[in-house]
């Protein structure tokens, strides 16, 4: 008998027990309790943070993407305890990892690491049926994006053999990470995301073979997991790219296509991952649009130029926005919109476009964004 057969057998228990247990059920939304208790207590602070980070995001919008946008003052800040989310530590505070060197990942230094192989750590019953990630392409296919992580902050145990971490990232390869709220919780904003992970067998919260460690430097393929209300690291039973104290890659993988980067500089791995995704073929220029096909090209160019790599644009209908003829479209990020979605409109007059949303009446509402709407259309 295996665990699934036992689970099936549990399904046949006397219905009086089911009815009895039903009575204990509250009407609380599952997703509310899906978060760590410490995070729940941090809700009021998180609300304040939303306002603060909103200003922060405004700054980001004016600067090139994939650039570290952390603390300008140099104050390393901190994340404390279970109930306070403060300004994130930059990890790269002094010396070799000073902010001046932040632009060059090859100068980053991580934690001392054991060169264990993930596969040898696990004894899970679910292994036999899972996807095995053997190449960078495997990881890219299943992920929303790779995030380049110079630091991991607060890690908390969260029951069910889970851990929760806040990863600070210096850039993304793949899709950019959308600001994501879930109820009152902030899951991703600015340059931080919430990650929840199932610990693998034999790993403890702070052991050298833990999946994520505070202060660690990683390249993480991530995917939003609605069941967790957070991002999860993809392929964590097959590979974990981390940078050791010498600044060299350790993959912890048994697969040759992944462990061939072991001992090499971070940039070599980053370049290999970047090569998977399409790069902009042309610069984005506003130009007249006289067909839907041209509009699609224009939109793809705009998004790719803006740092997105994994998205699908679907055109909805022609409309008049602010007095200009335009095509409306919806862009979904990640697999089946897993990484979020947004609406936009592109003007026939000159190909400029603007991001927006669809309100409760089904009308397109602008909120600014990637491109500016034609000035002469107002």
């Amino acid at each position, binding site marked *: 008998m295996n665990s699934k057969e036992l689970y099936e057998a549990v399904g046949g228990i006397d219905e009086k027990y089911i009815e009895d247990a039903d009575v204990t059920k509250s009407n609380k939304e599952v997703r509310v309790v899906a978060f760590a208790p410490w995070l729940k207590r941090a809700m009021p602070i998180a609300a304040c943070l939303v306002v603060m980070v909103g200003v922060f995001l405004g700054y980001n919008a004016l600067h090139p993407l994939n650039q570290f946008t952390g603390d300008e003052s140099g104050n390393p800040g901190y994340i404390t305890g279970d109930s306070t989310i403060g300004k994130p530590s930059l990890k790269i505070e002094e010396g070799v990892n000073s902010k001046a060197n932040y632009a060059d990942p090859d100068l980053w230094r991580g934690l001392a690491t054991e060169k264990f192989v993930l596969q040898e750590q696990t004894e899970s019953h679910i292994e036999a049926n899972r996807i095995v990630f053997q190449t960078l392409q495997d990881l890219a296919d299943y992920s929303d994006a790779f995030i380049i992580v110079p630091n991991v902050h607060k890690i908390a145990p969260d*029951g069910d053999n889970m851990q929760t971490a806040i990863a600070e990232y210096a850039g993304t390869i793949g899709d950019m990470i959308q600001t994501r709220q879930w109820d009152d919780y902030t899951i991703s904003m600015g340059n931080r995301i919430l990650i929840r992970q*199932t610990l693998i067998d034999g790993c403890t919260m702070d052991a050298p073979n833990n999946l994520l460690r505070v202060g660690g430097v990683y390249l993480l393929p991530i995917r939003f*997991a609605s069941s967790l209300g957070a991002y999860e690291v993809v392929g964590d039973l097959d590979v974990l790219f981390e940078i050791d104290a010498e600044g060299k890659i350790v993959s912890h993988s048994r697969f040759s296509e992944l462990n061939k980067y072991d001992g090499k500089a971070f940039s070599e791995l980053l370049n290999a991952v970047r090569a998977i995704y399409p790069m902009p073929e042309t610069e984005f220029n506003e130009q007249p649009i006289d067909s839907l096909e041209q509009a699609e090209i224009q939109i793809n160019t705009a998004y790719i130029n803006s740092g997105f790599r994994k998205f699908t644009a679907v055109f909805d209908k022609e409309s008049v926005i602010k007095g200009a003829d335009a095509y409306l479209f919806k862009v979904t990020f990640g697999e089946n919109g897993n990484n979020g979605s947004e609406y936009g409109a592109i003007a026939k007059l000159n190909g400029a476009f603007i991001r927006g949303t669809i309100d409760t009446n089904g009308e397109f509402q602008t909120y600014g964004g990637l491109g500016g709407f034609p000035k002469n259309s107002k």
Partner: protein
Amino acid sequence: MSDEQIITLYWERSESAIVETAAVYGKYCHKIAMNILANNEDADECVNDTYARAWSAIPPERPNKLSAFLGRITRNLALHVWEKHQAEKRGSGQFDVVLSELGELLSDGSSSVERQIEAASITESLNCFLSEQSDVSRRLFVRRYWHTDRLEEIAVDLGMSVSKAKSILFRMRKNLKIHLEQEGIIV
């Protein structure tokens, strides 16, 4: 609308039976499916299939408790979908954890003798085991391993800490293992 009234609608072959079932038990079934599949669309599909199965089964069935009847159908359907998904990708979060917990009390291998044990006798043994448990322990067990609810959620509903819930479940799994061994179901 009461269970009896809804079941009457089924027996009258009134299509409003489905509507009323959805209104009363739609969320209940959806949650059971979500706990296993962790995917909204798949869960929706399971719930819709549940209605179709209920429509086919009633009559001749006349369930005593509609929630358990529908929940059981949903659970089985979701499990079936999960099996299909397992062939394609890594599991579904919460459900994998539950399976992993249950796997702790089983031996690594499974003999042909074990496989010949009828599911019904295992269930009978489980019922016997549950009847010997305290109300709180039994509710905890059913919420965790029948509904596949999250530990945090169960702990809140039962007024205990997560660690206490985990501790009770841990002891129950150990006791269940002994119970199943004594019954000759696992060796």
